[in-house]
């Protein structure tokens, strides 16, 4: 069984290193095939491990090497496969394999084909380290690794130039109506990385607190002893760890990078910003559930923040025309759902929603990738339309995924979303329940708004001269398993619940059966009504309210993402840049450099003036003699015994 662990962990690394050998060469198809195959191998090993854990409930624990052994510090490289990590491993490898195969089709005209697969496999490797590690330090290594690979992948087309910022809502990179997702891929990559790093500082502080007070970073040791710490200290630790999770999972106020990360290639968005990296924050909270269980008030705050983000993101998706941004906002919204579940103590539900969301969201992104590839990378949904007849497979898969996202019975999203709403109701957090209920309706509406605009209605793309066609057969073949999982994953709810009950605490409160049924009906009602509204309004008018409301305040507010990116740009970035410039010009150049140069200058000029000693000039020689006498007399005075 340990062998499966090693295979699952290191197969992506082998793939990445292999692809890196060819990173600077032109496209070689076998690079894509081999890396996809290796991820597939990792998938097989992960499924094996999951099956083993599910049937025998045996946790597999290995220690690879001692990493840091210095005095009191002892951090090994260890890996654990328990129910939680096995679930995450299967989700990650499943989505990664499909994304790898899809990328072979999507990136087939790109000249950095090989480099893409190197980064992608490296990302999978980092994510595996993150979920399989058995201590916080290994988790942090994986955390940083995914941050780095995400930087490399978002900024994949780094040679694209910066876009000018403008006030025009149709062109500004801060608006969701423009064809630009961000100022440039390089800018978006840096923004994502830097925002993550700032949040990682919080996580590091949390780790330091843990280590300082408990003396170890191993999960089992920490969770055993967390109860012995003072309440305030545990609150601090929990808050700081959550700050780290906020950065990775793009909770407010660290949410700007996620929408801007759409500058990267679409398979990247599918893998990273739907299924894996952004869920790392949720994974952290789930893994540290014993810490959060001690401080339920922090959990409640997490849930409130999650609900806020859910409705915040859903509102922004209502008016956006940038297709990938709509899907990115829906990811953000669903992450909010996951944090509500985790915050309220229903950890297994959060993990369950994580898994189902990974499947339908990634296939939604992959479908969007197909559409973009077919229309020459067009990203404005209003410039598409009527694509269903040209791309039937993609259309159907995307409709299935959107249904799952909206939470319609019997697809996967229905089960996980309803469980979350149920747990909110059970904890008597009625405001949270209400917020999530409204968001469910909004989610249904905007997902189908996207579907209607892209696949039905007038064929607006004709005036741009696009000739859309269906994607290659293997691309569709990669999307099909994910679509099937999007349909069926919810049916395994009881198996999953039973398996995870061995590792995670079950929620404390329950509602009785009749209330559950009523909640299900109410939620389904709003979801179905959202879908119907989207479909029927489009069929009648061919559009929604966008034209009439274009100049209204609310529309502009939503389209500019509540002006939050502009706020960050002007109020945080600009002063920081000014401080940096000042520090460089005044402090560094004038002060520090001057000091260093001054020290060197002392020696130099001292030597220069000392040459007059040897110039052969008698007058100067006599002066030096005088100086020498003076020095000797001073020495005699201070050290001699003259009274």
């Amino acid at each position, binding site marked *: 069984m340990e062998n499966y662990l090693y295979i699952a962990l290191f197969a992506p690394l082998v793939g990445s290193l292999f692809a890196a050998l060819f990173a600077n060469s032109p496209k070689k198809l076998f690079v894509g095939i081999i890396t996809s195959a290796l991820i597939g191998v990792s998938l097989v090993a992960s499924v094996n491990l999951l099956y083993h854990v599910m049937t025998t409930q045996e946790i597999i624990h290995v220690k690879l090497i001692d990493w840091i052994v210095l005095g009191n510090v002892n951090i090994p490289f260890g890996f654990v496969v328990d129910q939680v990590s096995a679930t995450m491993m299967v989700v990650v490898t499943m989505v990664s394999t499909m994304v790898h195969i899809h990328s072979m089709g999507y990136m087939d005209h790109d000249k950095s084909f090989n480099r893409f697969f190197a980064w992608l496999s490296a990302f999978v490797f980092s994510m595996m380290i993150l979920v399989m590690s058995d201590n916080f330090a290994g988790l942090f290594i994986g955390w940083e690794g995914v941050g780095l690979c995400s930087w490399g992948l978002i900024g994949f087309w780094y040679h694209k130039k910066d876009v000018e910022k403008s006030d025009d809502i149709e062109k500004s990179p801060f608006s969701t109506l423009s064809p630009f997702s961000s100022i440039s891929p390089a800018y978006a990559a840096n923004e994502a990385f830097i925002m993550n790093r700032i949040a990682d500082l919080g996580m590091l502080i949390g780790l330091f607190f843990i280590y300082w007070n408990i003396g170890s970073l191993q999960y089992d040791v920490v969770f055993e002893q967390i109860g012995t710490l003072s309440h305030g200290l545990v609150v601090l630790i929990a808050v700081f760890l959550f700050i780290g999770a906020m950065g990775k999972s793009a909770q407010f106020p660290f949410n700007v990078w996620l929408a801007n990360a759409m500058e990267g290639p679409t398979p990247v968005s599918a893998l990273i910003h739907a299924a894996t990296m952004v869920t790392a924050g949720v994974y952290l909270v789930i893994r540290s559930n014993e810490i959060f269980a001690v401080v339920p008030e922090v959990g409640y705050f997490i849930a409130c923040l999650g609900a806020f983000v859910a409705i915040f993101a859903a509102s922004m998706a209502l008016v956006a025309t940038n297709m990938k941004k709509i899907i990115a906002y829906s990811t953000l919204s669903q992450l909010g759902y996951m944090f509500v579940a985790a915050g309220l103590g229903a950890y297994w539900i959060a993990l369950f929603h994580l898994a189902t969301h990974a499947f339908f969201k990634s296939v939604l992104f992959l479908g969007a990738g197909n559409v973009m590839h077919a229309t020459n990378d067009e990203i404005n949904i209003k410039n598409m339309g009527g694509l269903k007849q040209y791309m039937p497979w993609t259309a159907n898969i995307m409709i299935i995924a959107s249904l799952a996202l909206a939470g319609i019975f019997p697809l996967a999203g229905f089960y996980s979303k309803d469980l979350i709403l149920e747990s909110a109701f059970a904890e008597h957090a009625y405001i949270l329940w209400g917020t999530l209920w409204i968001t469910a309706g909004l989610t249904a509406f905007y997902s189908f708004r996207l579907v209607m605009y892209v696949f039905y209605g007038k064929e607006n793309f004709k005036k741009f001269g696009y000739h859309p066609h269906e994607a290659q057969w293997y691309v569709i073949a990669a999307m099909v398993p994910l679509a099937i999982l999007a349909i069926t994953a919810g049916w395994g709810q009881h198996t999953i619940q039973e398996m995870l009950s061995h590792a995670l605490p079950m929620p404390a409160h329950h509602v009785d059966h009749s209330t559950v049924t009523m909640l299900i009906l109410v939620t389904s009602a709003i979801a179905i009504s959202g879908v119907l509204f989207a479909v029927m309004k489009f069929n009648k008018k061919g559009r929604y309210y966008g034209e009439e409301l274009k100049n209204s305040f609310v529309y502009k507010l939503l389209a500019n993402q509540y002006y939050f990116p502009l706020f960050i740009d002007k109020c945080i970035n600009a002063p920081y840049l000014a401080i940096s410039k000042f520090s460089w010009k005044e402090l560094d150049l004038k002060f520090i450099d001057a000091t260093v140069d001054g020290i060197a200058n002392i020696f130099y000029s001292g030597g220069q003036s000392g040459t007059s000693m040897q110039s052969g000039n008698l007058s100067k020689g006599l002066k030096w003699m005088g100086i020498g006498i003076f020095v000797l*007399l001073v020495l005699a005075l201070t050290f001699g015994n003259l009274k």
Partner: protein
Amino acid sequence: MFEVIAFYLFAFLTIAMFGITVKTKNPLYALSSLAAGMIFISAFFFLLGADFLGAVQIIVYTGAVMALYAFGMMFFDSINDIKESASNPKLTFVLSGLIALIVVMIFMAPVIGANAEVVSPINPAYGNTQDIGMVLFTKYLIPFELAAVMLLVAMIGGIILAGKKMDVSITALSDQEVDKLHTDTEIKKDIK
């Protein structure tokens, strides 16, 4: 009382004279003030009861050495003021001032060595000259003779350095050759 007045008077005069020597631009003034200073120093020697030394100071220093300097001045342009370019005069001033300060501080301390062994004691019964004579020709005889040799060498050196036309030795020639030398030079003068 008399001693105190004399000391301070001569001290002031000496310092003034030597100050003029080092500061003035006119070389003749420098020369004269140096000579005056030497005389005043001999006054100190007399105050200290070193009569022989005082006399020697006047004869040798003021008489011989200053006369030598005066003869030497003839060779140089002594009418005009000498122009000197001093680099960084402030530094030298400050430096010498500091050194003077330090040494004065050192000497203000009570003199140690109160029980130093006296090598050649002064005998108050004899006069100073007789006393010195007794020590000079017994204990310091060899340095005395060596000093005499050194003075001889210096004299010869001075002559050689400053003299001219010394290839021909006049005393070794006979009388006619000396006359020939004379007329040759006179004929050479007439031809010019």
